[in-house]
């Protein structure tokens, strides 16, 4: 069913007036006739509304820092935050040296009441000492949780002192959960820290190969990055570091040598992408390795950037080979999926990225949105100059970097860069809305009530989101797909990933379980028996009615 403003109005009418005014601005019906459709995003969550959003700590430690495998990530605070961010995101890592892989470790200072009253700096210092002595990581991060800032623990000073004492890179992140309005604040804080204190620490001066790249905003969920790297390596690229899936301190500190940075998740890593350009002159290219067409386009754009005939040719060869492998496998799944509709509500980039893959399977995305993205992720980076900073974003300082005197290098001539910008998304992202079909809905920070109502109106065949809302549509008989953690499957990226995804989605549609929801006695009331046994007229009517 097509949706219109009036229907949205009716859904919102249940809200108290203030909530209604607020939420209205976060919902847009796509209409390509209008230029620049605006949406409100990255503003405060309304208290008392069932949201999917998390906090700055989750964005910093959970998303950006956590996947770096050869570092110990100390969480300074009471035990919970560290506990919940321990192995729960499926950011896979394989270590060259198993004694330098700390992903299975959760290190928390487990602050007690006395630490809250008298300060927790001493305990944090002891924890760092113990980590250095027992675990011997290549580097350490310290992330603050809610109470730390309030009680005035100076984690930056503790980190500095410990770094001096142990001679190990130790960085601190003041990512208390109340900062900003969502995980997004934490991404920014983590980006600043990595850029300021780690990237560039290494002493590599030259790229290790002709086509050296970094992949930014790729967290190797379910092994995505490995599938992408398989193809990239085959074409001839050398990946210096992935930020941050399966990434490491050892690789990250030399990220400055790359000739190109790929940006997969724009939201969580665009700060580093921009700063790398300013500091080292490395442009970034917005890529999308989710979906076959998007993957092909990304590969071709990369080849265009380097502009080398052999590389372009090799790219086409690999694409052809991969397609030949997967296309026949995809067919049976397409048959099952074709003609279906989906909701696609995910963090800060996947709400967009998966729409293309759905389309390839014949599934139309009728509603999409982000949990914590900003307006540029919806409307494109052209909107950036118009964004006002509000009280919440002001709390997260921008890091101002300047060109590195020794290492700044123009990677390609200015004119060529300008030419390329016209044909490939260099240093640019066009956002989600532009690519959506007319009449579909875009919802920012979709909450439970709206989920419920939109499902009733639009009756999607598939609901894709996260763990917190997974089981709600499922209870209604709507198949679900977790796009944060892939329901423990994957990889979904690249060519082979598309097959895994198609298989999993088709499985959701085909599982026989949906046929059993209504028990047979509900279809088939005890008509005959009741009528015979009941002599009273009214009784017969009731039973038969």
């Amino acid at each position: 069913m097509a949706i219109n403003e009036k229907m949205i109005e009716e859904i919102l009418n249940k809200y108290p007036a203030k909530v209604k005014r607020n939420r209205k601005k976060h919902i847009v019906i796509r209409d390509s006739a209008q230029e620049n459709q605006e949406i409100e995003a990255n503003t405060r969550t309304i208290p008392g509304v069932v949201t999917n959003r998390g906090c700055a700590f989750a964005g910093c430690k959970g998303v950006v820092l956590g996947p770096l495998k050869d570092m110990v990530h100390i969480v300074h605070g009471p035990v919970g935050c560290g506990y919940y961010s321990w192995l729960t995101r499926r950011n896979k890592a394989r270590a060259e040296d198993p004694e330098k892989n700390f992903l299975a470790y959760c290190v928390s200072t487990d602050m007690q009441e006395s630490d809250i009253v008298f300060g927790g700096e001493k305990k944090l210092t002891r924890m760092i000492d113990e980590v250095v002595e027992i675990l011997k990581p290549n580097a350490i991060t310290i992330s603050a949780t809610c109470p730390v800032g309030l009680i005035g623990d100076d984690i930056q000073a503790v980190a500095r002192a410990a770094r001096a004492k142990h001679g190990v890179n130790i960085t601190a992140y003041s990512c208390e959960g109340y900062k900003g309005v969502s995980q997004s604040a934490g991404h920014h804080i983590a980006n600043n820290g990595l850029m300021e204190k780690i990237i560039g620490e290494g002493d590599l001066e030259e790229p290790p190969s002709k086509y050296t790249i970094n992949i930014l905003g790729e967290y190797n969920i379910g092994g995505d990055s490995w599938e992408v790297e398989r193809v990239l390596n085959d074409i001839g690229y050398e990946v210096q570091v992935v930020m941050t899936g399966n990434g490491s301190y050892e690789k990250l500190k030399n990220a400055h040598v790359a000739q190109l940075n790929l940006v997969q998740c724009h939201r969580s890593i665009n700060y580093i992408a921009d700063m790398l350009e300013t500091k080292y002159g490395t442009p970034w290219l917005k890529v999308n390795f989710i979906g076959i067409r998007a993957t092909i386009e990304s590969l071709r754009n990369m080849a265009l950037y380097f502009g080398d005939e052999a590389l372009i040719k090799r790219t086409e060869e690999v694409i052809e080979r991969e397609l030949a492998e997967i296309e026949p496998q995809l067919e049976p799944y397409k048959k099952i999926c074709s003609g279906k509709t989906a909701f696609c509500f995910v963090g800060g980039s996947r709400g967009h990225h998966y729409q293309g893959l759905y389309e390839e399977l014949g599934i139309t995305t009728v509603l999409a949105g982000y949990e914590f993205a900003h307006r540029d992720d919806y409307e494109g980076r052209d909107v950036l100059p118009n964004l006002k900073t509000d009280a919440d974003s002001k709390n997260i300082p921008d890091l101002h970097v300047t060109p590195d005197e020794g290492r700044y290098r123009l990677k390609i001539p200015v004119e060529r860069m300008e030419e390329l910008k016209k044909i490939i998304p260099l240093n640019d992202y066009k956002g989600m809305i532009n690519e959506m079909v007319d009449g579909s809905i875009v919802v920012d920070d979709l909450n439970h009530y709206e989920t419920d109502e939109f499902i009733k109106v639009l009756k999607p065949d598939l609901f894709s989101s996260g763990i917190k809302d997974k089981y709600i549509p499922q209870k209604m008989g709507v198949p679900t797909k977790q796009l944060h953690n892939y329901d423990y499957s994957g990889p979904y990226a690249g060519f082979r990933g598309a097959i895994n995804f198609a298989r999993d989605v088709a499985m959701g549609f085909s599982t026989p379980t949906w046929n059993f929801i209504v028990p047979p006695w509900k279809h088939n009331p005890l008509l005959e028996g009741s009528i015979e046994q009941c002599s009273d007229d009214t009784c017969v009517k009731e039973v038969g009615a």
Partner: protein
Amino acid sequence: MLDCTPKEIIKRSGGMINPAKTCQPIGAMYAALGIHNCLPHSHGSQGCCAYHRSHLTRHFREPVMATSSSFTEGASVFGGGGNLKTAIKNVFSIYNPDVMAVHTTCLSETIGDDLPSIIKGAEVPEGKLVIHASTPSYQGSHITGFSNMVKGMVTYLAKATRDEKKEQVNIIPGFVNPGDMREIKRLGGELGVRSIIFPDTSGVLDSPMIGKFNMFPAGGAKVEDIRDSGNSKLTIALGYYASSDSAHLLERNCQVPAITLKTPIGIKATDDFLMTLRSKFVQEIPNQLEEERGQLVDVITDNHHHFYGKKVALFGDPDILTGLTEFILSLGMQPVHVLTGTPAGTLTGSGIFEKEIKEMLAAAGHEGRVKAAGDLFELHQWIKNEPVDLLMGNTYGKYIARAEDLPFVRVGFPILDRGVHSYLPIVGYRGAMRLVEMISDTLLDRQDRDAADEDLELVM
């Protein structure tokens, strides 16, 4: 796997590495879900609420609905009263529960928000209730949080409205699965004793698929029943750590005598539970339960050679461990390491965990390492120093199991990598039978896996 954990144990004091506990609010949220028509609310920044919902959802594979006060920096500096009042208004107009159960987080506790007065000043619609519990995460554990929310239920809801007590029993089941709460209720029912069980997450977090989503499913303890708990003749607190504080509060407030028993895991603890009901309510134990008990003893006898004498390492929540250790001993197995992350002495009266378990071990003629406020890093080191035949605990144990190549039985909270467990009990005779099956199958699967071709046997 866990290759960075050395065998040599160095004393640490900087906090936890691989904790065996989590923070209070998740326990409070879980307890609140055990009230019918209740929406839990987390008063703090929204990250806590998101984490707790995710973790509970992963354990139960069910929707877990809760709201947050969504603090921003301003609220953290000036207090979250405004946020809570807005939340209360929104919750009742949008979701319309009967009860909103607010718990605090480390943030609102550190700020020192005064919840009772904020709630008093809020617009709460006629006939609706807002209850609260203080759950600072820098004390105790998720078990403490559960206990505190149950105390909140007693404080706000339970009333003694008559002089003479009714022939009914209150049962506080502790932090166990809905499948366990269901079984505890069934046991009471089989005995014919009217029981008020609260909190009760059965029918909420094990709700059936009916083709429709109910934000407030059919299950949960009814508010009028929790109110009426003040008129009961007796309260049985199952589990010292999760349940005894609220039972004693009910005793003080409403003069309902309280008895604390072990979580009824295994024969002895289930016997104790039934014997207590029998003596207080002068009921005969029905045949059905005697038969179940007999079946349990029968399967243990039939299968004892599969597990007798095996060494076990156990970790998890203190009340579960106390019952489980007793049962493991009744199977003739040897618990050599028993560890909980929950501190022993956070509740009134000093910790009994270590003492109780050590006494059980001593009575069985065993020695073992027992620790409260421990972590899994240490448990792993213990195992490296004194190997075991079997590991039992929550999902996090799978890493140790793999590192040390140990058979592993999942029991407790959270279990994030397997389904169905939360629907089925480990309490009562039937729950014990299920445990026997899990333990012996796990050990036998391992034996089969490792057997040479010529040693693989059809009949075992």
